[in-house]
């Protein structure tokens, strides 16, 4: 895209469908008035998280590209009403997509979405350093700069909270991918992924732990979001 395009701060609608764009520049975030962005039928391989900084974006079309993943930051697109992702290379979506409460249209056909998720049988256990760090952080063991070397102080500051809101745990480098199948936005059993601090960390929706490897919990969409369908 020519750099001058990315300075059009009053631009509301940008259609570049059917071209050969290979990427979306991060400067797209400068198009602060943008409501419609049509990039279908290009050669785009990834979505920059900066796209999430467009506060009025309501119609985002990325179909017929080569996109392998959707960044979880897109959850910040509070105005998003319609998201077109069909014919790409997605295997799952980020769990954060559930927070797009205004999303009413979502197209996903022609993606190799996983239909079964088997917990990774080979799990690289956390290092001893990480295990010690987790214990200190989750049990609030007090420490101060005179107790430990500064590189360990720095390490402890890097702790991330487990994404599971019911887990008080933290992780540093070692986390696991977890996929749940969720009915969302007219779709049946979408594979939604998030990270957990360990394979044993129970997800908030897991009220009936299953004995087999698959996680089959479904979060149903509230009835007031179920809408009538227009069909041809």
């Amino acid at each position, binding site marked *: 895209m020519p750099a001058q395009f990315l300075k059009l701060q009053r631009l509301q609608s940008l*259609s570049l*469908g*059917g071209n050969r764009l290979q990427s979306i520049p991060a400067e797209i975030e400068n198009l602060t008035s943008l409501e*419609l962005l*049509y990039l*279908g*039928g290009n050669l785009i391989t990834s979505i920059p998280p900066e796209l999430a900084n467009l506060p009025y974006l309501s*119609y985002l*079309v990325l*179909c*017929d590209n080569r996109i392998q993943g959707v960044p979880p930051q897109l959850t910040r697109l509070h105005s998003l*009403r*319609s998201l*077109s992702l*069909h014919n790409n290379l997605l295997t799952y979506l980020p769990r954060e997509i559930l927070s797009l409460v205004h999303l*009413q*249209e979502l*197209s*996903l*056909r022609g993606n190799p*979405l996983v*239909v079964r998720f088997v917990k990774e049988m080979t799990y690289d256990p956390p290092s001893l350093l990480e295990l010690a760090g987790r214990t200190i952080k989750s049990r609030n063991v007090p420490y101060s700069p005179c107790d430990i070397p500064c590189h360990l102080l720095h390490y402890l500051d890097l702790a991330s909270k487990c994404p599971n809101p019911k887990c008080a745990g933290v992780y540093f480098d070692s986390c696991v991918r977890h996929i749940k199948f969720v009915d969302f*936005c*007219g*779709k*049946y*059993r979408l594979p939604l992924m998030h990270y957990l601090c360990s394979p044993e960390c129970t997800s908030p929706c897991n009220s009936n732990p299953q004995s087999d490897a698959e996680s089959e919990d479904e979060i149903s969409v509230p009835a007031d979001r*179920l*809408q*009538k*369908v*227009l*069909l*041809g």
Partner: protein
Amino acid sequence: MEQTEVMKPETLDDLIKILHKIFESDNINVEEVQNIMEAYDSNPQEWMKFAKFDQFRYTRNLVDEGNGKFNLMILCWGEGHGSSIHDHTDSHCFMKLLQGQLKETLFEWPDKKTCNMVQKSQRILQTNQCAYINDSFGLHRVENASHTECSASLHLYSPPFQTCQTFDQRTGHKNTVKMTFWSKFGERTPFETTVSQENN
């Protein structure tokens, strides 16, 4: 043997009159209807008033209620818009391209063991071409594959139906859905249509 005259409809109004006459009988000759619809050369001036496009998804715009024997409607497809995989509730479905092109993908009915639904065939319908389908042919998905052009299609359903089933391509899972109109006879009907839950 009844002789049916194949007249070329010169205008959309002509076509509607001929269709009314054909559907007076309870026996439908599919080929006859298909030929008549194909014979009408699309003239946007005649149908523009019904063709209300929406930014987010395709729209269904009722044109004529066929004395209760059929529904005639115009579907408007923006760039990239597509439908679910759906059936036709035991009715005849004729689809004629008024503008642009549409991609039609046929699927087998899923059975209990279905994982990915089986695709039977795919074709691109050209302007003025008229396709036909009923449940015995299978299911289909219709989409505007163009990223630069809108499409419009004229659909005839007989008998008319208000609900149908949509199918999830990955699993064969089905849902019964109620169908609504974006507009009727050229007037927008906002209280009838709410947002879709199209599985596409």
